[in-house]
């Protein structure tokens, strides 16, 4: 059975966007493309300001994903947890949609008695294990993020470790914003292993602005490019899971 592909954007940031498009509608557009947007807000000792927190939650909500605010120390655990949680959510969405088709318009997993849920979960678990996953990681490297970047790198290696324990395939790509010459810069092209990231973070120079919106836009574009290229090469339809609420 071909199980299709889950597409995610993972945004790691520590505050408000201040340049370019509003990231919230951008996240909405991503969702329309079948891409889930997850956001992780990283704190050091300071507290993220109210506005930043609201933006983080709104981006994830609009992007159909999961958001979490964490201290930099617990980043590793959170990154993998958020990613997996979002995968489950997406798959649950798919299962819910199927259920609606079979059982009528308003049936979701929650409407089934607990006994029946167990069986459905087995299916979701199985999919979680075998589904292919594509993640674009967007890392905010603006000024205040600089001391947190080594931990971000650690967290991404950890994510790769967690996801590669599954039997499904993974593809990762890493973008940073702002880039040296552009709003967004690609650090790492599609690869199944984030371990190749080891050296690339060191040559970053963290700048002042935070173009979160343009970064999400670029990620969507990059996803589409990949799939259109692949569509040209291979003739069969790409099957992917679309988020449905």
């Amino acid at each position, binding site marked *: 059975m071909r199980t299709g592909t889950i597409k995610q954007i993972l945004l790691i940031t520590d505050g408000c966007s201040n340049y370019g498009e509003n990231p919230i509608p951008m996240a909405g557009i991503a969702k329309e493309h079948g891409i889930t947007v997850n956001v992780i807000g990283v704190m050091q000792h300071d507290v993220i300001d109210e506005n930043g927190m609201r933006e983080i*939650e709104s981006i994830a909500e609009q992007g159909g994903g999961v*958001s979490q605010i964490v201290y930099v120390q617990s980043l590793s655990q959170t990154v993998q947890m958020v990613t997996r949680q979002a995968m*489950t959510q997406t798959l649950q969405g798919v299962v819910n949609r199927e259920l609606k088709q079979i059982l009528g318009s308003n049936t979701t997993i*929650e409407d089934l008695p607990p006994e029946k849920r167990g069986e459905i979960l087995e299916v979701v678990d199985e999919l979680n294990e075998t589904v292919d996953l594509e993640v674009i990681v967007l890392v905010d490297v603006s000024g205040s993020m600089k001391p947190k970047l080594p931990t971000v790198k650690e967290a991404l290696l950890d994510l790769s470790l967690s996801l590669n*324990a599954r039997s499904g395939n993974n593809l990762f790509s890493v973008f940073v914003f702002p880039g040296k010459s552009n709003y967004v810069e690609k650090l790492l092209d599609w690869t199944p292993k984030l371990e190749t990231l080891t050296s690339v973070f060191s040559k970053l120079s963290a700048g002042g602005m935070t173009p979160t919106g343009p970064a999400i836009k670029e990620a969507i574009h990059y996803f589409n490019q990949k799939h259109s290229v692949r569509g040209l090469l291979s003739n069969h339809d790409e099957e992917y899971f679309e988020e449905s609420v």
Partner: protein
Amino acid sequence: MKNTLKSPFNISIGTVIQGKWHQNKYVIMKELGRGAIGVVYLAEWNQKKVAMKLSDNNMTITSEVNVLKSFRKAQGVTLGPSLLDVDDWVTATGTFSFYVMEYIEGFQFLNFIKQNGRTWIDMFILQLLSDLSKLHTHGWVFGDLKPENLIVTGPPIKIRCIDVGGVTPQGRAIKEFTEFFDRGYWGLGSRKAEPSYDLFAVAMILINMYYPQRFQKNGDSLTFLKSKIKQVPELKEYYSLLIKALSGHYKNADEMRKDYLQVLSKKRMNVPQSSPTQMSGFSRRRQKKYQMTGPSGSSSFHLAKMKNRNLKRKQRKRTGLIESIVLLVLISFLYFMYIYQFI
């Protein structure tokens, strides 16, 4: 759809929770614990104490219920708490899923050790290893194995695993873990659910007993952990066993258990050798425990004594050798002096 992972609920004591499907009524008595996903409460049902896990994530609840159910199928094995009920609680703010399990009364593992001493550790690790062996034979891996998920019940004193949130079918990816006990964090293996994943955690639990504050990774993990083990004399006795477990050389829990028993019997032999001045309260207590062990224990205790005597004889032999060498040298020196006179 929820977009955050935090558990927002705070249920006040005395709240009555009635299930939507089975209509059972539970009175909340106390909060027992709070995890990343969900809260565990002590509740009363039909004048009986039960434990209830509530979460806004119904899939997590369902997944844990699945695990508990399959444990129930494994007859006669107490791998986790037994499952009593699964239901939904409908409130004005939303529907929460919950399951009800037997309430295992006991001490937190770490508290128990703090109060009763490290003498108990060996027994608990052995109990844990045989439980894990059963769990693994049934095709599961515990996953999030750490002292916080262990509880001590009894008498007879027995260690039990309480949180089945991390239990994963073998071959799948581990979904819940704690860094210190996770071999992935230390770069010493994958996060695939296999018996050796749990055995790594057992080794870390033992290390944790002597490093209650725990520590973070630092450079090459195996070298670093080796040095940490060597720094504690009590841990050093388990050195090769720990290294084997940490580097994933044990294929199953029984193998590790066998080695563990071997370490213990070696330790027993070492006890009479240590001089009385060196014997702190801790090891004296340990010695007393050995003497209390049954007939089989005392025989090997006897063996240890005999070994000790042999050793002493060997030592005596050695001093004799030194004596004769000294005498020989002295005599040849005198003889030389004697000869020298004639030259």
